[in-house]
C-alpha cells in the first residue's frame, strides 16, 4: 500500500508514453467516423435509425463471430411494466442471476451481473442493508436461519440516474423502462453515484463473451453486446417483454417468486398482487417511486 510506484511500472509507463507519442491517430475509415458522429437514439429519424442499426449489426456480427440482430421495437401504448418479487418464496439460488447473464449478454470476464441477491440472517435488523451478505456460497439453498432479497434496477418512476446524467444518455421510456443508449453514454458514472439500489454496472474492461454464449437476438436499448467504458443495467428484458414474453429471470425462477406484468391492465397478475398483498418498495423514503414491488404471498 502507499504511494510507491514499482520501478517496472514506471519504466513501462515511460515507454508507453513514448510509444503513444509516436502512435498518431490511426487511419480513419468510414465506420469509425459514423460511429463517432452517431446521434442520440431519440434524435434520429427512421432512416437514420435503419442505417445505424445496419452498421451496428455488421460491427457486432464481425466482433462476436455470429449473426447478431438488433431490434428497435418501441413501447406499446397502454403498457407500463411492473415487477413483483415474493420474498416468502425466494430461496436464494441465483438462477435468476445466471439466466439474466445468459439472456442479456453481460460480460463473462470481467464478470458483470445485473441482479444482486442479498442474504440476511433472520431476526436481525436488515433494512439498512449493512448486515447483508452478497457473496454467500453454501452447499445448498435455502439455508437455515436466512432469507434472501434479490435487487436489480427498480425502474423508478422518479429515477435519480436520469436526472443526473449530463448527456441524457439514460431516460425513461413510455412503458416505464429506464433505458440507456450505450452509444451515447460518456462513461462519467454520475448515474452510478445517484442510484440508491446499486443497480447500475460499468464496463470497467472490454466485455468478453464466448461466441457460443452470445445471445444473437437483441434490442438496441437492451441486450445488444456492450462496449468498454459505458454503463448498463437491467431493462426488464426489453427485447423479450416488448415482444410479449416474460423477462428471463421470471422464467428461470424455480419457485415462482418472480412476477411481471402490465400495471395498467386491471386484470394482470401484477395488479392483483399490488391490490391484494402487503407490498413494499425498497427505500421508499427517497421518493424514487420504483416499479419493483416486494411482497409476502405466504
Amino acid at each position: 500500500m502507499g504511494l510507491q510506484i514499482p520501478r517496472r511500472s514506471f519504466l513501462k509507463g515511460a515507454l508507453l508514453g513514448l510509444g503513444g507519442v509516436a502512435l498518431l491517430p490511426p487511419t480513419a475509415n468510414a465506420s469509425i467516423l459514423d460511429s463517432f458522429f452517431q446521434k442520440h437514439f431519440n434524435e434520429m429519424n427512421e432512416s437514420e435509425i435503419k442505417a445505424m442499426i445496419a452498421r451496428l449489426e455488421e460491427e457486432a456480427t464481425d466482433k462476436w463471430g455470429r449473426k447478431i440482430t438488433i431490434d428497435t421495437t418501441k413501447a406499446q401504448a397502454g403498457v407500463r411494466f411492473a415487477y413483483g418479487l415474493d420474498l416468502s418464496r425466494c430461496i436464494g439460488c441465483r438462477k435468476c442471476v445466471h439466466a439474466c447473464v445468459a439472456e442479456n449478454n453481460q460480460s463473462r470476464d470481467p464478470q458483470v451481473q445485473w441482479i444482486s441477491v442479498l442474504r440476511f440472517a433472520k431476526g436481525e435488523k436488515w433494512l439498512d442493508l449493512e448486515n447483508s451478505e452478497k457473496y454467500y456460497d453454501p452447499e445448498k439453498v435455502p439455508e437455515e436461519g436466512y432469507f434472501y432479497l434479490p435487487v436489480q434496477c427498480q425502474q423508478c418512476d422518479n429515477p435519480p440516474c436520469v436526472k443526473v446524467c449530463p448527456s441524457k444518455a439514460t431516460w425513461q421510456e413510455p412503458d416505464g423502462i429506464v433505458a440507456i443508449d450505450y452509444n451515447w453514454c460518456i462513461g462519467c458514472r454520475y448515474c452510478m453515484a445517484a442510484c440508491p439500489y446499486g443497480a447500475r454496472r460499468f464496463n470497467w474492461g472490454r466485455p468478453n463473451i464466448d461466441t457460443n454464449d452470445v445471445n444473437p437476438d437483441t434490442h438496441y436499448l437492451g441486450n445488444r453486446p456492450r462496449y468498454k467504458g459505458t454503463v448498463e443495467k437491467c431493462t426488464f428484458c426489453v427485447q423479450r417483454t416488448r415482444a410479449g414474453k416474460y423477462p428471463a429471470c421470471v422464467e428461470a425462477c424455480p419457485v415462482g417468486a418472480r412476477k411481471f406484468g402490465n400495471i395498467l391492465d386491471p386484470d394482470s397478475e401484477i395488479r392483483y398482487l399490488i391490490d391484494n398483498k402487503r407490498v413494499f418498495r425498497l427505500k421508499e423514503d427517497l421518493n424514487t417511486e420504483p416499479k419493483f414491488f416486494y411482497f409476502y404471498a405466504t
Partner: protein
Amino acid sequence: MSSVLYRAFQGIMQGDRKYWTWVGFLLVIILVGFGAYINQASRGLIVTSMRDQVSWGFYIANFTYLVGVAAAAVLLVIPAYLYNFKPIKEIVLFGELLAITAVAMCIFFVVIDMGQPLRVWHMLPLLGTMNFPDSLLVWDVFVLNSYLVVNLLLVIYALSRLAAGKEYKLGRIMPLILLSIPMAVSIHTVTAFLYNGLSARPFWNASILAPRFLASAFCSGPAIMLLLLQLIRRFTKVEIDNRALFKIAELIAYAMAINLFLLGAEVFKEFYSGSVHVAPLEYLYLGLHGKSMLTPWMWLALGFNVSAFCIFLIPRWRQNIVLLNCGAVLIVIGVYIEKGLGLVVPGFVPDVLGEIYEYWPSATEIMITAGIWAMGALLYTVAIKFAVPIYTGEFLNKLPGQRPAQVTTTKEEA
C-alpha cells in the same frame, strides 16, 4: 507592446540550468503519466482500483480538491480590491494564473475519468444533448469554463496593459473582477451540489457539505499561494511584501476555524443521533466492520489541520517564515486528504447495498494523477516565466522613453 510580448515568449525558452532541470523533471513525469493513460485508454478503467461499489476514486478526488484551489484566487481578490489592501493587490495576478492552472487540471481530471472521453461533446450545448438544468455536472462544466474565461480575460488585460507600458486601469475591468468573486464561490458551490444532491449517498446528502467545501477551499488554495509566492519571490525579480503573506495567513486561520467547526458540527450530529447514516463517518475515523484503510490518513489530516490552525492563529507564529511555511504545507496536505479521498470514498462506503469495498488508488491512477499535477506545475511555471518580465517591466526598462508599469487604481489611494 508586441515586441515585449515576443521577448516574453522567447523568455520561456531561456533559462538557467535549474529551470531546465525542473522543466525536464516535469516532462518525465508527464510522459510517464501519458504512458499510463494510453494503457488505461486501451484496457479500460479496469486498470484503476475503482469498481461498481466505489465508482469514483482518486481522479474525482483530485478534481474536487483543485476546484477549491481554483476558487481560492477570490480570497486574494476580495481584500485586494474591495478593501484596497495594496500589498496583496500586486500579487493578484499570480492568484489568477493559479486559478487558470487549477481549472485546466480539473478539466484533465474529469476527462481522464471518463469511460468514453471521445464522446465528451455529447454533453455540450448545441453539439450534443446537454441535460440542462437537471444535471449538476452540466452546471459544473458551465461554471468552470466561465471562470476559466473570466480569469484568462483578466490576465490578458493586465499583461497587455503592462506590456504596453501603460497603467493597469482597474476601473475598466472592475465589473469582471467583481464577477469573478461570485463565480469563484459558484464553482465550488456547484461542485459541492454535484455530490450534495444525491439522496442515495447520506454522507454527501448533508446540507453542511457546500459550506464545508468553501471553508476548506479557502484554506488550501491560499496555502498553496503562500508557498508559490515565496518561490516567485526567490526565483524572480518580483518583490512581494511580507505583509501580504501574513495577511493571507491570517485569512487562512479564519477559514480553518470555520472548517474545523463545520467538521465538528457534522461529527456531533452523526455520532450523537447515531442513525445508520453514521456509517461513512465511522468508516473514516474509526473503521467499519474491521475495515479501516482510510482511518490513519483521516487522523493525520485532522492533526495537520489543527496544527496549522494554531500556527496561523497566533500572530507571532505566523510571522515566522519557517513556521508559516510549515503551516502552509500541513494545510495543503491536510485538506488534500480530507477533501480528496476523505470526501469521495465515504460516499461509496458502505455502498448503497451495504457492501464495504475498500478503495485505494492503483499504480496507474497514481501515475496518471502525478502526470496531471506535473502538467499543472509546468503550465504555471511557463506562465510565470512569461508573465513576470512583463509584470516587472524588465523589457521596457531597456527601451528609452518608457517607464516601468505600475499597478494603479482609478481611485486615489497613493
